[in-house]
Protein backbone atom coordinates (compact mmCIF):
# COMPACT_ATOMS: atom_id res chain seq x y z
CA UNK A 1 0.00 0.00 0.00
CA UNK A 2 1.26 3.51 -0.79
CA UNK A 3 2.15 5.88 1.99
CA UNK A 4 -0.96 7.90 1.22
CA UNK A 5 -3.05 4.71 1.46
CA UNK A 6 -1.57 3.95 4.88
CA UNK A 7 -2.32 7.48 6.10
CA UNK A 8 -5.90 7.37 4.80
CA UNK A 9 -6.50 3.97 6.43
CA UNK A 10 -5.08 5.32 9.69
CA UNK A 11 -7.31 8.41 9.48
CA UNK A 12 -10.42 6.31 8.87
CA UNK A 13 -9.57 4.19 11.91
CA UNK A 14 -8.97 7.34 13.98
CA UNK A 15 -12.29 8.90 12.92
CA UNK A 16 -14.11 5.63 13.69
CA UNK A 17 -12.51 5.37 17.14
CA UNK A 18 -13.26 9.03 17.94
CA UNK A 19 -16.86 8.60 16.74
CA UNK A 20 -17.41 5.64 19.08
CA UNK A 21 -15.84 7.58 21.94
CA UNK A 22 -18.00 10.59 21.12
CA UNK A 23 -21.13 8.40 21.32
CA UNK A 24 -20.09 6.98 24.69
CA UNK A 25 -18.76 10.05 26.51
CA UNK A 26 -21.04 12.49 28.29
CA UNK A 27 -22.73 13.36 31.55
CA UNK A 28 -24.80 10.16 31.49
CA UNK A 29 -22.70 7.00 31.26
CA UNK A 30 -24.06 4.55 28.72
CA UNK A 31 -23.59 0.91 29.77
CA UNK A 32 -23.80 -0.54 26.28
CA UNK A 33 -23.94 -4.16 27.47
CA UNK A 34 -27.06 -3.57 29.65
CA UNK A 35 -28.63 -1.43 26.94
CA UNK A 36 -28.28 -4.17 24.33
CA UNK A 37 -30.09 -6.53 26.70
CA UNK A 38 -32.94 -4.01 27.15
CA UNK A 39 -34.05 -2.51 23.84
CA UNK A 40 -36.68 -0.44 25.70
CA UNK A 41 -34.08 1.22 27.95
CA UNK A 42 -34.61 5.02 27.96
CA UNK A 43 -30.83 5.38 27.67
CA UNK A 44 -31.25 4.51 23.98
CA UNK A 45 -33.00 7.84 23.55
CA UNK A 46 -29.93 9.62 24.90
CA UNK A 47 -27.73 7.72 22.49
CA UNK A 48 -29.90 8.19 19.40
CA UNK A 49 -31.52 11.58 20.05
CA UNK A 50 -28.60 13.42 21.69
CA UNK A 51 -25.26 11.72 21.15
CA UNK A 52 -25.74 10.46 17.60
CA UNK A 53 -26.63 13.86 16.05
CA UNK A 54 -23.78 15.48 17.96
CA UNK A 55 -21.26 12.89 16.76
CA UNK A 56 -22.36 12.83 13.14
CA UNK A 57 -22.52 16.63 13.03
CA UNK A 58 -18.99 16.89 14.47
CA UNK A 59 -17.81 14.44 11.83
CA UNK A 60 -19.50 16.21 8.92
CA UNK A 61 -18.70 19.75 10.04
CA UNK A 62 -15.07 18.78 10.58
CA UNK A 63 -14.93 17.13 7.15
CA UNK A 64 -16.41 20.29 5.60
CA UNK A 65 -13.88 22.52 7.34
CA UNK A 66 -10.93 20.27 6.48
CA UNK A 67 -11.89 19.81 2.83
CA UNK A 68 -12.74 23.48 2.25
CA UNK A 69 -9.49 24.48 3.97
CA UNK A 70 -7.49 22.19 1.70
CA UNK A 71 -9.36 23.39 -1.41
CA UNK A 72 -9.00 27.08 -0.50
CA UNK A 73 -5.29 26.62 0.21
CA UNK A 74 -4.91 24.85 -3.14
CA UNK A 75 -6.84 27.49 -5.05
CA UNK A 76 -5.05 30.46 -3.49
CA UNK A 77 -1.67 28.64 -3.34
CA UNK A 78 -1.67 30.09 0.14
CA UNK A 79 -0.92 27.92 3.16
CA UNK A 80 -2.69 30.39 5.48
CA UNK A 81 -6.07 30.16 3.73
CA UNK A 82 -9.05 28.65 5.56
CA UNK A 83 -12.77 29.49 5.80
CA UNK A 84 -12.19 31.23 9.15
CA UNK A 85 -9.11 33.24 8.16
CA UNK A 86 -10.74 34.30 4.88
CA UNK A 87 -13.90 35.49 6.64
CA UNK A 88 -16.34 32.92 5.22
CA UNK A 89 -17.35 31.61 8.66
CA UNK A 90 -17.81 35.15 9.99
CA UNK A 91 -19.98 36.04 6.98
CA UNK A 92 -22.15 33.01 7.69
CA UNK A 93 -22.51 34.08 11.32
CA UNK A 94 -23.46 37.60 10.23
CA UNK A 95 -26.09 36.16 7.91
CA UNK A 96 -27.63 34.22 10.80
CA UNK A 97 -27.46 37.19 13.20
CA UNK A 98 -29.17 39.55 10.75
CA UNK A 99 -32.30 37.40 10.81
CA UNK A 100 -32.99 38.75 14.32
CA UNK A 101 -34.04 41.99 12.65
CA UNK A 102 -36.14 40.45 9.94
CA UNK A 103 -39.91 40.84 10.43
CA UNK A 104 -40.54 37.31 9.18
CA UNK A 105 -39.76 33.99 10.81
CA UNK A 106 -39.95 30.41 9.58
CA UNK A 107 -38.20 27.27 10.82
CA UNK A 108 -35.22 27.18 8.46
CA UNK A 109 -34.74 30.96 8.26
CA UNK A 110 -31.56 31.18 10.35
CA UNK A 111 -29.73 28.25 8.73
CA UNK A 112 -30.64 29.49 5.27
CA UNK A 113 -29.49 33.00 6.17
CA UNK A 114 -26.19 31.58 7.47
CA UNK A 115 -25.66 29.80 4.17
CA UNK A 116 -26.58 32.90 2.20
CA UNK A 117 -24.04 34.80 4.31
CA UNK A 118 -21.37 32.20 3.55
CA UNK A 119 -22.15 32.35 -0.17
CA UNK A 120 -22.03 36.15 -0.16
CA UNK A 121 -18.74 35.93 1.75
CA UNK A 122 -17.06 33.56 -0.71
CA UNK A 123 -18.44 35.53 -3.66
CA UNK A 124 -17.12 38.79 -2.24
CA UNK A 125 -13.79 37.16 -1.46
CA UNK A 126 -13.30 35.90 -5.03
CA UNK A 127 -14.48 39.22 -6.45
CA UNK A 128 -12.18 41.24 -4.18
CA UNK A 129 -9.19 39.04 -4.97
CA UNK A 130 -10.05 39.23 -8.67
CA UNK A 131 -7.96 37.46 -11.28
CA UNK A 132 -4.77 38.36 -9.43
CA UNK A 133 -5.12 35.66 -6.81
CA UNK A 134 -1.82 36.47 -5.16
CA UNK A 135 -1.25 35.35 -1.60
CA UNK A 136 -1.28 38.92 -0.29
CA UNK A 137 -4.42 40.03 -2.11
CA UNK A 138 -6.36 36.99 -0.89
CA UNK A 139 -5.32 37.42 2.73
CA UNK A 140 -6.16 41.14 2.58
CA UNK A 141 -9.55 40.32 1.09
CA UNK A 142 -10.05 37.93 4.01
CA UNK A 143 -9.11 40.69 6.46
CA UNK A 144 -11.63 43.02 4.81
CA UNK A 145 -14.34 40.35 4.97
CA UNK A 146 -13.62 39.48 8.60
CA UNK A 147 -13.66 43.17 9.50
CA UNK A 148 -16.99 43.83 7.78
CA UNK A 149 -18.64 40.72 9.22
CA UNK A 150 -17.14 41.36 12.66
CA UNK A 151 -18.41 44.94 12.66
CA UNK A 152 -21.85 43.79 11.59
CA UNK A 153 -22.05 41.20 14.36
CA UNK A 154 -20.73 43.66 16.96
CA UNK A 155 -23.35 46.19 15.87
CA UNK A 156 -26.02 43.51 16.16
CA UNK A 157 -24.80 42.70 19.68
CA UNK A 158 -24.89 46.29 20.84
CA UNK A 159 -28.33 46.89 19.34
CA UNK A 160 -29.74 43.51 20.34
CA UNK A 161 -33.48 43.84 21.00
CA UNK A 162 -33.63 41.30 23.87
CA UNK A 163 -31.25 39.40 26.19
CA UNK A 164 -32.27 36.23 24.33
CA UNK A 165 -31.03 37.78 21.13
CA UNK A 166 -27.67 38.49 22.81
CA UNK A 167 -27.44 34.86 23.85
CA UNK A 168 -28.38 33.76 20.36
CA UNK A 169 -25.68 35.92 18.81
CA UNK A 170 -23.07 34.61 21.24
CA UNK A 171 -24.12 31.11 20.21
CA UNK A 172 -23.24 31.89 16.59
CA UNK A 173 -19.89 33.40 17.53
CA UNK A 174 -18.69 30.65 19.84
CA UNK A 175 -19.59 27.47 18.08
CA UNK A 176 -20.88 24.52 20.03
CA UNK A 177 -22.26 21.09 19.28
CA UNK A 178 -23.95 20.61 22.65
CA UNK A 179 -27.64 19.64 22.55
CA UNK A 180 -28.01 19.47 18.77
CA UNK A 181 -31.17 17.76 17.63
CA UNK A 182 -31.75 15.11 14.97
CA UNK A 183 -33.48 17.87 12.96
CA UNK A 184 -30.23 19.82 12.87
CA UNK A 185 -28.53 16.77 11.41
CA UNK A 186 -31.31 16.14 8.88
CA UNK A 187 -31.01 19.74 7.68
CA UNK A 188 -27.24 20.20 7.68
CA UNK A 189 -26.06 16.69 6.78
CA UNK A 190 -27.16 16.53 3.14
CA UNK A 191 -26.09 20.15 2.52
CA UNK A 192 -22.59 19.54 3.89
CA UNK A 193 -22.31 16.34 1.85
CA UNK A 194 -23.30 18.21 -1.32
CA UNK A 195 -20.64 20.81 -0.52
CA UNK A 196 -18.02 18.08 -0.03
CA UNK A 197 -18.83 16.61 -3.44
CA UNK A 198 -18.53 20.01 -5.18
CA UNK A 199 -15.22 20.72 -3.45
CA UNK A 200 -13.83 17.29 -4.36
CA UNK A 201 -14.51 18.05 -8.06
CA UNK A 202 -11.88 20.82 -7.99
CA UNK A 203 -8.94 18.42 -7.47
CA UNK A 204 -7.56 18.36 -11.01
CA UNK A 205 -7.81 22.15 -11.36
CA UNK A 206 -6.08 22.67 -8.01
CA UNK A 207 -3.20 20.47 -9.17
CA UNK A 208 -2.87 22.50 -12.36
CA UNK A 209 -2.95 25.75 -10.35
CA UNK A 210 0.36 24.70 -8.81
CA UNK A 211 1.74 26.18 -12.06
CA UNK A 212 -0.09 29.49 -11.53
CA UNK A 213 -3.22 30.76 -13.26
CA UNK A 214 -1.63 31.09 -16.71
CA UNK A 215 -0.09 27.64 -16.39
CA UNK A 216 -3.41 26.10 -15.35
CA UNK A 217 -5.34 27.85 -18.12
CA UNK A 218 -2.78 26.65 -20.67
CA UNK A 219 -3.47 23.07 -19.50
CA UNK A 220 -7.11 23.52 -20.49
CA UNK A 221 -8.45 24.17 -16.98
CA UNK A 222 -11.63 26.28 -16.90
CA UNK A 223 -10.82 28.57 -13.98
CA UNK A 224 -14.25 30.19 -13.81
CA UNK A 225 -15.82 26.73 -13.37
CA UNK A 226 -13.30 26.06 -10.61
CA UNK A 227 -14.24 29.31 -8.90
CA UNK A 228 -17.94 28.46 -9.00
CA UNK A 229 -17.34 24.94 -7.63
CA UNK A 230 -15.12 26.31 -4.88
CA UNK A 231 -17.51 29.11 -3.93
CA UNK A 232 -20.60 26.90 -3.93
CA UNK A 233 -18.86 24.00 -2.20
CA UNK A 234 -17.41 26.18 0.56
CA UNK A 235 -20.68 28.05 1.06
CA UNK A 236 -22.61 24.77 1.42
CA UNK A 237 -20.08 22.87 3.56
CA UNK A 238 -19.10 25.77 5.84
CA UNK A 239 -22.41 27.64 5.75
CA UNK A 240 -24.45 24.62 6.80
CA UNK A 241 -21.93 23.90 9.56
CA UNK A 242 -22.14 27.43 10.95
CA UNK A 243 -25.91 27.27 10.57
CA UNK A 244 -26.25 24.45 13.10
CA UNK A 245 -23.10 24.78 15.22
CA UNK A 246 -21.88 28.36 14.94
CA UNK A 247 -18.34 29.41 14.09
CA UNK A 248 -15.73 26.69 14.65
CA UNK A 249 -12.36 27.92 13.52
CA UNK A 250 -8.93 26.59 12.66
CA UNK A 251 -9.80 23.00 11.76
CA UNK A 252 -9.59 24.01 8.10
CA UNK A 253 -6.26 25.75 8.61
CA UNK A 254 -4.56 23.16 10.79
CA UNK A 255 -5.58 19.93 9.07
CA UNK A 256 -3.99 20.35 5.61
CA UNK A 257 -0.77 21.45 7.31
CA UNK A 258 -0.57 18.42 9.54
CA UNK A 259 -1.24 16.14 6.57
CA UNK A 260 0.95 17.71 3.87
CA UNK A 261 4.18 16.13 5.21
CA UNK A 262 2.41 12.76 5.43
CA UNK A 263 0.57 12.49 2.09
CA UNK A 264 2.56 14.95 -0.05
CA UNK A 265 1.75 18.47 -1.18
CA UNK A 266 -0.19 17.65 -4.38
CA UNK A 267 -3.46 19.56 -3.80
CA UNK A 268 -5.82 16.88 -5.16
CA UNK A 269 -4.13 14.21 -3.07
CA UNK A 270 -4.67 16.31 0.02
CA UNK A 271 -8.45 16.80 -0.34
CA UNK A 272 -9.97 13.60 1.08
CA UNK A 273 -7.28 13.11 3.76
CA UNK A 274 -8.04 16.68 4.90
CA UNK A 275 -11.75 15.86 5.11
CA UNK A 276 -10.95 12.87 7.32
CA UNK A 277 -8.43 14.86 9.32
CA UNK A 278 -10.86 17.74 9.84
CA UNK A 279 -13.48 15.26 11.07
CA UNK A 280 -10.93 13.83 13.52
CA UNK A 281 -9.91 17.29 14.77
CA UNK A 282 -13.48 18.46 15.42
CA UNK A 283 -14.52 15.11 16.96
CA UNK A 284 -11.47 15.25 19.24
CA UNK A 285 -12.15 18.88 20.17
CA UNK A 286 -15.79 18.12 20.93
CA UNK A 287 -14.73 15.16 23.08
CA UNK A 288 -12.23 17.33 24.91
CA UNK A 289 -14.79 20.00 25.85
CA UNK A 290 -16.97 17.26 27.35
CA UNK A 291 -14.08 15.77 29.33
CA UNK A 292 -12.68 19.03 30.74
CA UNK A 293 -13.96 19.16 34.33
CA UNK A 294 -15.68 22.53 34.57
CA UNK A 295 -19.06 23.76 35.78
CA UNK A 296 -20.26 24.73 32.31
CA UNK A 297 -19.05 23.03 29.15
CA UNK A 298 -16.33 25.04 27.38
CA UNK A 299 -17.70 25.98 23.96
CA UNK A 300 -16.14 24.03 21.12
CA UNK A 301 -15.45 27.15 19.02
CA UNK A 302 -13.59 28.70 21.95
CA UNK A 303 -11.58 25.55 22.59
CA UNK A 304 -10.60 25.29 18.92
CA UNK A 305 -9.57 28.95 18.91
CA UNK A 306 -7.41 28.35 22.02
CA UNK A 307 -5.63 25.53 20.18
CA UNK A 308 -5.64 27.24 16.81
CA UNK A 309 -4.10 30.54 17.91
CA UNK A 310 -0.77 29.04 18.98
CA UNK A 311 -0.77 26.83 15.88
CA UNK A 312 -1.29 29.89 13.65
CA UNK A 313 1.64 31.55 15.43
CA UNK A 314 3.83 28.49 14.86
CA UNK A 315 2.80 28.42 11.20
CA UNK A 316 3.62 32.08 10.73
CA UNK A 317 7.05 31.62 12.28
CA UNK A 318 7.90 28.65 10.05
CA UNK A 319 6.56 30.45 6.96
CA UNK A 320 8.54 33.57 7.82
CA UNK A 321 11.69 31.51 7.83
CA UNK A 322 10.81 30.00 4.45
CA UNK A 323 9.75 33.26 2.81
CA UNK A 324 12.84 35.04 4.10
Amino acid at each position, binding site marked *: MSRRGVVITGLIALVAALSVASLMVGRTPLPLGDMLAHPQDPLWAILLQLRLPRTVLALLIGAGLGLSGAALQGFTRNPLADPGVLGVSASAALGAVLTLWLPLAFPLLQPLAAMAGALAGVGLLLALAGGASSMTVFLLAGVVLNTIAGAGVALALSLAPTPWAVNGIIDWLMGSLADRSPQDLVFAGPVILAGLVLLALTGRALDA*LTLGEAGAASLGIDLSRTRVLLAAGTALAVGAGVAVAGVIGFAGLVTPHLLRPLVGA*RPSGLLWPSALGGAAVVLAGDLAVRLIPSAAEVRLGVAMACLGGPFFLFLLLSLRRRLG
Partner: protein
Amino acid sequence: MSGLHAQGLTLRRGRREILAGLDLALRPGEVTVLLGPNGAGKSTLMSALAGLLPPAAGKVLLDGEDLSALAPAARARRIGFLPQTPEVAWPLEVRILVGLGRIPHIGARGLSAEDARIIEAALAEAGAADLADRDASTLSGGERARVMIARVLAGEPDWILADEPLAGLDPGCQIDAAQTLVRRAKAGGCGVVLTLHDLSLAARIADRVLVLAEGRLLADGPPDSALAPPVLDRAFGVRTALRRGPEGLSVDVLGR
Protein backbone atom coordinates in the same frame (compact mmCIF):
# COMPACT_ATOMS: atom_id res chain seq x y z
CA MET B 1 -4.17 25.74 -44.09
CA SER B 2 -1.82 24.10 -41.62
CA GLY B 3 0.08 26.14 -39.06
CA LEU B 4 -0.65 28.75 -36.44
CA HIS B 5 -2.02 31.93 -37.97
CA ALA B 6 -2.97 35.33 -36.63
CA GLN B 7 -5.30 37.46 -38.71
CA GLY B 8 -5.77 41.12 -37.82
CA LEU B 9 -5.00 40.19 -34.20
CA THR B 10 -5.81 43.13 -31.94
CA LEU B 11 -5.64 43.20 -28.14
CA ARG B 12 -6.35 46.07 -25.81
CA ARG B 13 -5.71 46.65 -22.15
CA GLY B 14 -8.14 49.32 -21.08
CA ARG B 15 -8.01 51.79 -23.97
CA ARG B 16 -4.39 51.10 -24.83
CA GLU B 17 -3.83 48.96 -27.88
CA ILE B 18 -1.21 46.29 -27.08
CA LEU B 19 -1.37 44.53 -30.44
CA ALA B 20 -2.56 46.43 -33.47
CA GLY B 21 -3.95 44.16 -36.17
CA LEU B 22 -1.13 41.64 -36.43
CA ASP B 23 -0.93 39.17 -39.32
CA LEU B 24 1.29 36.12 -38.83
CA ALA B 25 1.71 32.66 -40.30
CA LEU B 26 3.82 30.25 -38.24
CA ARG B 27 4.83 26.87 -39.63
CA PRO B 28 5.31 23.58 -37.78
CA GLY B 29 8.86 22.22 -37.62
CA GLU B 30 10.29 25.75 -37.37
CA VAL B 31 11.85 27.62 -34.47
CA THR B 32 10.46 31.14 -34.41
CA VAL B 33 12.04 33.69 -32.07
CA LEU B 34 10.01 36.72 -31.02
CA LEU B 35 12.13 39.75 -30.15
CA GLY B 36 11.21 43.22 -29.03
CA PRO B 37 11.87 45.84 -26.38
CA ASN B 38 10.28 45.57 -22.93
CA GLY B 39 6.60 46.44 -23.16
CA ALA B 40 6.39 45.73 -26.88
CA GLY B 41 3.56 43.26 -26.37
CA LYS B 42 5.55 40.02 -26.65
CA SER B 43 3.94 38.29 -23.67
CA THR B 44 0.49 39.46 -24.77
CA LEU B 45 1.11 38.05 -28.25
CA MET B 46 2.31 34.74 -26.80
CA SER B 47 -0.76 34.43 -24.53
CA ALA B 48 -3.06 35.27 -27.43
CA LEU B 49 -1.39 32.69 -29.68
CA ALA B 50 -1.82 30.14 -26.89
CA GLY B 51 -5.53 30.97 -26.79
CA LEU B 52 -5.39 32.34 -23.25
CA LEU B 53 -6.34 35.95 -24.07
CA PRO B 54 -9.42 36.51 -26.19
CA PRO B 55 -8.64 39.02 -28.96
CA ALA B 56 -10.50 42.34 -29.12
CA ALA B 57 -10.55 41.95 -32.89
CA GLY B 58 -9.18 39.48 -35.39
CA LYS B 59 -8.47 35.86 -34.63
CA VAL B 60 -5.92 33.12 -34.12
CA LEU B 61 -6.30 30.05 -36.33
CA LEU B 62 -4.84 26.63 -35.57
CA ASP B 63 -4.72 24.62 -38.80
CA GLY B 64 -7.49 26.83 -40.09
CA GLU B 65 -9.70 26.43 -37.04
CA ASP B 66 -10.55 29.43 -34.85
CA LEU B 67 -8.76 28.91 -31.54
CA SER B 68 -11.58 30.45 -29.51
CA ALA B 69 -13.96 27.81 -30.87
CA LEU B 70 -11.83 24.92 -29.59
CA ALA B 71 -12.65 23.29 -26.24
CA PRO B 72 -9.99 24.26 -23.65
CA ALA B 73 -8.75 20.68 -23.22
CA ALA B 74 -8.54 20.11 -26.99
CA ARG B 75 -6.60 23.35 -27.36
CA ALA B 76 -4.31 22.40 -24.47
CA ARG B 77 -3.49 19.04 -26.08
CA ARG B 78 -2.20 20.84 -29.17
CA ILE B 79 -0.60 23.99 -27.75
CA GLY B 80 1.84 23.82 -24.85
CA PHE B 81 2.52 27.15 -23.14
CA LEU B 82 5.31 28.06 -20.78
CA PRO B 83 4.52 31.35 -19.00
CA GLN B 84 7.18 33.88 -18.09
CA THR B 85 8.63 33.20 -14.59
CA PRO B 86 6.73 29.96 -14.08
CA GLU B 87 5.36 29.46 -10.61
CA VAL B 88 5.69 26.31 -8.48
CA ALA B 89 3.36 26.86 -5.57
CA TRP B 90 3.88 23.65 -3.60
CA PRO B 91 6.92 21.50 -2.82
CA LEU B 92 5.97 18.77 -5.31
CA GLU B 93 8.22 15.97 -6.46
CA VAL B 94 9.61 16.89 -9.90
CA ARG B 95 8.08 13.78 -11.50
CA ILE B 96 4.62 14.79 -10.24
CA LEU B 97 5.14 18.36 -11.45
CA VAL B 98 6.12 17.17 -14.94
CA GLY B 99 3.08 14.84 -14.83
CA LEU B 100 0.83 17.93 -14.63
CA GLY B 101 1.64 18.33 -18.33
CA ARG B 102 -0.53 15.26 -18.98
CA ILE B 103 -3.67 16.91 -17.56
CA PRO B 104 -5.18 17.81 -20.97
CA HIS B 105 -4.90 14.15 -22.00
CA ILE B 106 -6.15 12.34 -18.93
CA GLY B 107 -9.39 14.17 -18.13
CA ALA B 108 -10.83 12.70 -14.94
CA ARG B 109 -8.86 9.44 -14.99
CA GLY B 110 -5.51 8.89 -13.31
CA LEU B 111 -2.12 8.54 -14.99
CA SER B 112 -1.75 5.30 -16.99
CA ALA B 113 1.44 3.31 -17.55
CA GLU B 114 1.65 4.99 -20.97
CA ASP B 115 1.44 8.44 -19.31
CA ALA B 116 4.19 7.42 -16.88
CA ARG B 117 6.38 6.34 -19.82
CA ILE B 118 5.81 9.69 -21.58
CA ILE B 119 6.69 11.57 -18.38
CA GLU B 120 9.97 9.69 -18.00
CA ALA B 121 10.77 10.29 -21.68
CA ALA B 122 10.07 14.01 -21.30
CA LEU B 123 12.32 14.19 -18.23
CA ALA B 124 15.11 12.48 -20.17
CA GLU B 125 14.61 14.63 -23.26
CA ALA B 126 14.90 17.83 -21.22
CA GLY B 127 17.98 16.55 -19.39
CA ALA B 128 16.06 16.45 -16.12
CA ALA B 129 16.00 12.69 -15.49
CA ASP B 130 18.40 13.05 -12.57
CA LEU B 131 16.03 15.57 -10.94
CA ALA B 132 12.94 13.33 -11.06
CA ASP B 133 12.87 12.56 -7.33
CA ARG B 134 13.80 16.08 -6.15
CA ASP B 135 11.49 18.56 -4.44
CA ALA B 136 10.63 21.09 -7.18
CA SER B 137 10.67 24.02 -4.75
CA THR B 138 14.39 23.52 -4.04
CA LEU B 139 15.62 23.61 -7.65
CA SER B 140 18.15 26.14 -8.96
CA GLY B 141 17.18 28.42 -11.84
CA GLY B 142 18.76 26.17 -14.46
CA GLU B 143 17.24 23.01 -13.01
CA ARG B 144 13.83 24.65 -12.82
CA ALA B 145 14.03 25.70 -16.48
CA ARG B 146 14.77 22.11 -17.52
CA VAL B 147 11.90 20.78 -15.40
CA MET B 148 9.47 23.36 -16.82
CA ILE B 149 10.47 22.43 -20.37
CA ALA B 150 9.98 18.75 -19.47
CA ARG B 151 6.49 19.66 -18.22
CA VAL B 152 5.62 21.17 -21.61
CA LEU B 153 7.17 18.25 -23.52
CA ALA B 154 5.14 15.77 -21.46
CA GLY B 155 1.96 17.25 -22.96
CA GLU B 156 3.17 16.18 -26.44
CA PRO B 157 1.83 19.36 -28.03
CA ASP B 158 2.05 20.22 -31.73
CA TRP B 159 3.09 23.73 -30.71
CA ILE B 160 5.30 24.95 -27.89
CA LEU B 161 5.04 28.61 -26.98
CA ALA B 162 7.60 29.62 -24.36
CA ASP B 163 7.79 33.13 -22.92
CA GLU B 164 11.41 33.87 -22.01
CA PRO B 165 12.27 30.29 -21.11
CA LEU B 166 16.00 31.10 -20.98
CA ALA B 167 15.86 34.28 -18.86
CA GLY B 168 18.29 34.28 -15.96
CA LEU B 169 20.14 31.12 -17.04
CA ASP B 170 23.91 30.80 -17.35
CA PRO B 171 25.24 30.34 -20.92
CA GLY B 172 25.58 26.58 -20.59
CA CYS B 173 22.03 26.13 -19.29
CA GLN B 174 20.76 28.48 -22.03
CA ILE B 175 22.31 26.35 -24.74
CA ASP B 176 21.02 23.09 -23.22
CA ALA B 177 17.48 24.39 -22.84
CA ALA B 178 17.45 25.97 -26.30
CA GLN B 179 18.76 22.77 -27.88
CA THR B 180 16.02 20.70 -26.24
CA LEU B 181 13.39 22.94 -27.85
CA VAL B 182 15.17 23.07 -31.24
CA ARG B 183 15.35 19.26 -31.24
CA ARG B 184 11.60 19.00 -30.69
CA ALA B 185 11.08 21.24 -33.71
CA LYS B 186 13.57 19.51 -36.00
CA ALA B 187 13.06 15.86 -35.04
CA GLY B 188 9.52 16.02 -33.67
CA GLY B 189 8.00 18.39 -36.22
CA CYS B 190 6.76 20.62 -33.41
CA GLY B 191 6.25 24.34 -34.01
CA VAL B 192 8.35 26.24 -31.45
CA VAL B 193 7.90 29.91 -30.64
CA LEU B 194 10.19 31.58 -28.08
CA THR B 195 10.60 35.09 -26.79
CA LEU B 196 14.22 35.98 -26.06
CA HIS B 197 16.32 39.02 -25.21
CA ASP B 198 19.65 37.55 -26.34
CA LEU B 199 20.09 38.67 -29.96
CA SER B 200 23.00 36.34 -30.74
CA LEU B 201 21.20 33.33 -29.32
CA ALA B 202 18.22 34.28 -31.48
CA ALA B 203 20.49 34.52 -34.52
CA ARG B 204 21.90 31.08 -33.83
CA ILE B 205 18.78 29.03 -33.11
CA ALA B 206 15.99 30.75 -35.06
CA ASP B 207 14.70 29.64 -38.41
CA ARG B 208 12.67 32.77 -38.36
CA VAL B 209 12.70 35.98 -36.33
CA LEU B 210 9.81 38.28 -35.53
CA VAL B 211 10.62 41.76 -34.23
CA LEU B 212 7.75 43.38 -32.36
CA ALA B 213 7.67 47.03 -31.27
CA GLU B 214 4.69 49.04 -30.03
CA GLY B 215 2.26 46.30 -30.98
CA ARG B 216 3.39 46.05 -34.61
CA LEU B 217 5.76 43.74 -36.45
CA LEU B 218 8.90 45.56 -37.64
CA ALA B 219 10.36 42.47 -39.24
CA ASP B 220 9.34 38.91 -40.01
CA GLY B 221 11.83 36.69 -41.78
CA PRO B 222 15.04 34.67 -41.61
CA PRO B 223 17.59 35.86 -39.02
CA ASP B 224 19.97 37.50 -41.50
CA SER B 225 17.28 39.89 -42.71
CA ALA B 226 15.19 40.34 -39.54
CA LEU B 227 18.27 41.02 -37.41
CA ALA B 228 19.71 43.62 -39.80
CA PRO B 229 21.11 46.68 -38.00
CA PRO B 230 18.41 49.13 -39.23
CA VAL B 231 15.63 46.89 -37.82
CA LEU B 232 17.32 46.53 -34.42
CA ASP B 233 18.03 50.28 -34.36
CA ARG B 234 14.34 51.01 -34.87
CA ALA B 235 13.20 48.38 -32.36
CA PHE B 236 15.70 48.86 -29.53
CA GLY B 237 17.47 52.13 -30.38
CA VAL B 238 20.89 50.44 -30.42
CA ARG B 239 23.70 50.23 -32.98
CA THR B 240 24.53 46.64 -33.89
CA ALA B 241 26.70 44.64 -36.23
CA LEU B 242 25.51 41.35 -37.71
CA ARG B 243 28.49 39.01 -38.11
CA ARG B 244 28.71 35.78 -40.01
CA GLY B 245 31.36 33.46 -38.55
CA PRO B 246 32.18 29.79 -38.93
CA GLU B 247 29.70 29.05 -36.09
CA GLY B 248 26.88 30.95 -37.79
CA LEU B 249 25.36 34.37 -37.24
CA SER B 250 25.96 36.57 -34.23
CA VAL B 251 24.90 40.08 -33.28
CA ASP B 252 27.25 42.52 -31.55
CA VAL B 253 25.61 45.36 -29.68
CA LEU B 254 27.90 48.37 -30.14
CA GLY B 255 26.08 51.11 -28.25
CA ARG B 256 23.19 53.52 -28.34
